[in-house]
């Protein structure tokens, strides 16, 4: 005896959406995901349909599909792997953040998402997520170094220095440490310390010296004031 063939809910949902029947598409997508949580395309398409149509049904679909439940993790991962040529920056940000919420126990997911968010210049979110990742991957130099950089961009210089210290203890290359230490010290208004680090880094020569020379052009607070002339 053979079981009944399960309908391809996802294809039916796509067809319904194409007809403009978003209410039906909503029901079918819901079934597609619940019966086959591994089918990432269903969540992915649900999100797309929800975003690109303005009907009340689509709004319901959006409200449902953005719910951060583990059943959608496959969909969000699929979305990350297939961002599409037109995927907007904010859409990618939103997907990355959802993956993080859905995968709190997986340091590699968090680290990858955090670095991707840093690449999208969402530094506050990146710093937060890389912070979570670093608690799971305590000795992962790549994650700790990325965390130090994100905190710098998110204007948390003290936090960045602390992450950089941890990265250094885990074997971060001295050149990388010196350049970023100088940046973070400057950002923390510790200019004298930063200048000392810059001198050491420039003495190493090569690419790091050139980068430090560029960084060294940054104006210091004392440059903005001059002593009144004696007349």
């Amino acid at each position, binding site marked *: 005896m053979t079981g009944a063939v399960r309908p391809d809910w996802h294809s039916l949902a796509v067809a319904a959406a194409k007809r403009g029947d978003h209410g039906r598409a909503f029901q079918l997508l819901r079934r597609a995901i619940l019966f086959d949580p591994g089918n990432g395309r269903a969540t992915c398409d649900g999100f797309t349909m929800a975003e*690109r149509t*303005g009907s009340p049904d689509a709004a319901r679909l959006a409200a449902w599909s953005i719910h951060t439940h583990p059943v959608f993790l496959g969909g969000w991962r699929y979305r990350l792997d297939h961002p599409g040529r037109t995927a*907007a920056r*904010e859409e990618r940000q939103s997907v990355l953040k959802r993956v993080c919420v859905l995968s709190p126990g997986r340091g590699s997911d968090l680290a990858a998402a955090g670095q991707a968010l840093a690449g999208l*210049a969402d530094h506050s979110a990146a710093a937060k997520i890389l912070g979570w990742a670093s608690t799971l991957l305590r000795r992962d130099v790549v994650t700790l170094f990325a965390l130090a950089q994100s905190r*710098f961009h998110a*204007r948390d210089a003290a936090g960045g220095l602390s992450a950089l210290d941890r990265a250094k203890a885990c074997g971060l290359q001295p050149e990388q440490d010196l350049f970023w230490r100088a*940046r973070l010290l*400057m*950002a923390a208004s510790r200019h004298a310390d930063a200048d000392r680090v810059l001198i050491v880094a420039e003495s190493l020569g090569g690419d790091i010296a*050139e*980068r430090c*020379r*560029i*960084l*060294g*052009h*940054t*104006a210091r*607070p004392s*440059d*903005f*004031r*001059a*002593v*009144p*002339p004696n*007349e």
Partner: protein
Amino acid sequence: MRGDLAGRAVYLLIEDAGRELDSRILIAQHLLERGAEVWIGQQLWFVRNFTALRPGVALFKGTNIAQVANMRAARLAGHRTASIDEELFGLIGTSGKRMHDPRAGRHCDLFLAQGAAQHEFLRDSLGIPADSIRITGNPRADLLRAPATAPIDRAAEEIRGRMGPFVLINTNISGINPHDQDTYNYYRRCIALNAIDPDNPESVESFHQLCAFETENLRAIAAFIAAFRAAAPDRKLVIRPHPAEDPNSWRNAHGGDPGIEVVEDKRHLAWIRAADALVHTSCTTGLESALLGTRTIGLVPDPGNPYSRRYISNLVSEIHQDPARAARALADGGSAPAPNLTAIGNLIHIDPDEMAAAKTAGALAGLSITISGETRTGRPEAGFRSFTPSGRQRDQMTVPEATLRGRLRELGSAIGLAEPVNCEAIQQDVFRLRPDSPRVP
């Protein structure tokens, strides 16, 4: 020409409202007068929605790598493209080829040149066919001449009433005092915009020269402030940092001095107009100040640096190498020497009989009529994709509807084109303007 653009659409893309909004409004007024429908607003919204907009003419703010990529998107969606180089307005040179994507000739249908020198550069250095270039001048110069100065005068009056007399210092050291923390970030941004080639030692050396130039300028400004405060302790100084700078550096240094105020108000022309004098360090605002008739003092501490010879403002300002002498000259009073505008005729075309905005509208109209009527009406203009600006983009381009309506009314009234306009907000910072009543050719 009244009504000859009826049914046609022109898209005016804005990157930085402080720099471009008013000049785009002047262009819009002339296009509306001719019956066109004008869309104006956040450039990145248009980039996301070119396929949903009916084919028209899109005006971009330059031809760097990012702008040309956007032009390509517009062309693929059936639009015609034009550019006016807003980075060039105050420059003697032409920013070199690096600020111009080599694909510009392929994706830009019409280049609007601000003067004969730019026309020559586009033709001879970038290989743009002469019939794709029009010398229109820059509508930003219109805003500095009567009759368009009336709104600036009103705003200046309000500022002066509030502040009393003051000397304005406009700083422009965004390379060494950037809004995003340090010079290395600025360097990365320059690379992203193709302004620097990190693999070319000459290009990198030029960046170092720029930083050295800014460092000397910062020293000169600091020395000027100290000297002027000593020479004229009762006179007020207002420091207005460039919008791409970190204003807190100035606040931290001078916040405790009651004779110094740091302002971030974006109405830079009104502040110049309201000031007794403007002090600058090779800044475009020096050119604007001279055209507005405000006394303009340029500090050029290092005349040998190539960057000191790049800016038109230094051709029309009262130049001082020694900041202390500049401070004394200003403290002693004196009137503004008339700017030497003949020295810049080749760089900025100023036609006493026709505004650059009118010439620009005319050039865009010429491009618009190459779009067939069938194509023009073939797209629904619906289902627009939203655009959420980043913090920086919001800082650069936020225009409330009331502000746009006010500027349309004020500038329209000043230049005698104040007929009612139907203004519709499409999304935040994006507007569709239509003549209130149909224009008949």
